[in-house]
């Protein structure tokens, strides 16, 4: 056997984008040629080089005698979809920084490129805002369960070094219970008949102070998160509280909304979407915002999450000309007995009724791990390698569907993730060759 002495990495375009952040337009393509005496990895931008380095590292094997070898290879590669995301929920359970960073590593091993950081929700507000520090001071589980500006910066930088975008989700107007603790009058007071019940509902859409606050917060988010997009949420808004509040009813009457609370929600969301545009960001929203008929800017991305009829939703969203992200079939918080990775692997994102132009509007997908039953103790094994199945579906060509071949490769990939410190759970029976008796 002859020896491979080096891997030469060549960025071919004038602007390597070395000092930039990755974005939805980032070029991740690369060519890799492995032959004696040196391998050559060519990419237009650094993002492609990162993906190619991952591929190169997977090609190197170690034999039983401790010698490293690689087969001569010729690879040309680029992703099928531009948006390949993992949603992690850090509100329902707080995730320590270390867990987030390990999962960013695992994302890079699987060529994911978007960390959808579901950073706040009803249960807690761990994001420490510079403008509104009381939000986390009052809304986090404890003073320990917060992401400081330094922590957030670290996550963004760590992700950038792996070609991963960080898109924060600040869900609004629903799922905002934790916001109300640190921001007076932000939430709608609910009524029991003529009297306040003591509970609070979604964001109060009838007060000017609500919009002043949101604009200030969005201005901060703009400066903290470099990505072009902000996820505004917009899901599961419960109208019960708005319906009970006499001031909201009066406001609805004045505006001519009759009894349509979806119109009230639309009124609120449209103002927030305009604010997002005014701070030079673009929006991603959950599908209900689209379903409720909110006037969306054409470049607003709609994320399809409802499991039933998601193909019909993709058809409708793209028919209206909106880019779409598919999450519905990849809710990894649902667990079942056996090899459910096959179910995730078998999803074809473009399998819906629509013309070519509609299908081109599907920018990608996301595997989602909501936090109800997941914290640092079980997040990683529940996520990996099940999310890997989604990763290949979003990266590889449409015709890469052979389950038996995928099983063999994914089993080995899971062992590779273990070696690199990611506690990925087993796919099925078997072992990893590097396991030793004293390894736990």
């Amino acid at each position: 056997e002859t020896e491979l002495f080096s891997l030469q990495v060549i960025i071919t375009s004038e602007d390597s984008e070395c000092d930039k952040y990755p974005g939805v337009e980032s070029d991740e393509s690369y060519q890799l040629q492995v032959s004696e005496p040196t391998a050559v990895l060519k990419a237009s931008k650094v993002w492609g080089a990162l993906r190619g380095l991952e591929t190169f590292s997977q090609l190197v094997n170690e034999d039983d005698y401790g010698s490293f070898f690689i087969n001569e290879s010729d690879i040309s590669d680029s992703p099928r979809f531009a948006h390949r995301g993992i949603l992690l929920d850090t509100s329902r359970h707080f995730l320590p920084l270390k867990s987030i960073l390990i999962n960013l590593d695992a994302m890079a091993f699987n060529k994911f490129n978007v960390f959808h950081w579901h950073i706040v929700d009803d249960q807690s507000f761990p994001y420490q805002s510079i403008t509104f520090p009381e939000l986390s001071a009052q809304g986090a589980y404890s003073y320990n369960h917060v992401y400081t500006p330094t922590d957030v910066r670290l996550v963004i930088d760590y992700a950038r070094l792996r070609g991963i975008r960080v898109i924060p989700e600040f869900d609004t107007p629903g799922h905002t219970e934790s916001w109300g603790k640190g921001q007076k009058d932000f939430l709608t007071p609910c009524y029991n008949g003529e009297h306040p019940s003591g509970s609070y509902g979604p964001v109060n859409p009838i007060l000017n102070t609500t919009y002043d606050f949101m604009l200030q917060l969005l201005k901060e988010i703009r400066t903290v998160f470099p990505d072009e997009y902000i996820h505004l949420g917009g899901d599961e808004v419960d109208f019960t509280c708005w319906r009970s509040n006499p001031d909201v009813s009066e406001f609805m009457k004045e505006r001519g909304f009759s009894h349509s609370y979806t119109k009230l929600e639309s009124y609120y969301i449209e103002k927030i979407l305009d604010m997002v545009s005014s701070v030079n960001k673009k929006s991603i929203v959950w599908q209900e915002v689209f379903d409720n008929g909110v006037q969306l800017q054409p470049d607003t991305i709609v994320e399809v999450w409802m499991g039933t009829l998601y193909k019909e939703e993709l058809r409708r969203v793209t028919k209206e000309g909106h880019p779409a992200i598919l999450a519905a079939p990849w809710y990894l918080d649902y667990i079942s007995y056996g090899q459910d990775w096959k179910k995730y692997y078998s999803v074809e994102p473009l399998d819906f009724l629509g013309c070519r132009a509609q299908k081109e509007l599907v920018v990608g997908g996301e595997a989602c791990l909501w936090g109800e039953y997941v914290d640092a103790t079980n997040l990683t094994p529940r996520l990996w390698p099940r999310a890997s199945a989604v990763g290949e579906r979003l990266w590889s060509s449409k015709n890469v569907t052979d389950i038996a071949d995928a099983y063999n490769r994914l089993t080995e990939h899971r062992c590779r993730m273990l070696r690199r410190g990611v506690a990925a759970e087993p796919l099925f029976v078997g072992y990893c060759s590097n396991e030793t008796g004293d390894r736990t």
Partner: protein
Amino acid sequence: LWPLPRSLHISPARLQLAPKRFQILHGSGSSAGPRCSLLQDAFRRYYGYIFGYSKWQNHDEKKPLS
């Protein structure tokens, strides 16, 4: 490989890699050089992934990456 690349040809011919001699470096003509910390960091990281988990060699002194 995971995920599977778009186009892939792997030949049976094998090449050896010696951890103490193998280097990941910027090729000539690259618009990114040693000042590109993103790539420098990635070179170090992937050198570690390739050679750092050997059951035989992980106690050896690692060759610093130039």
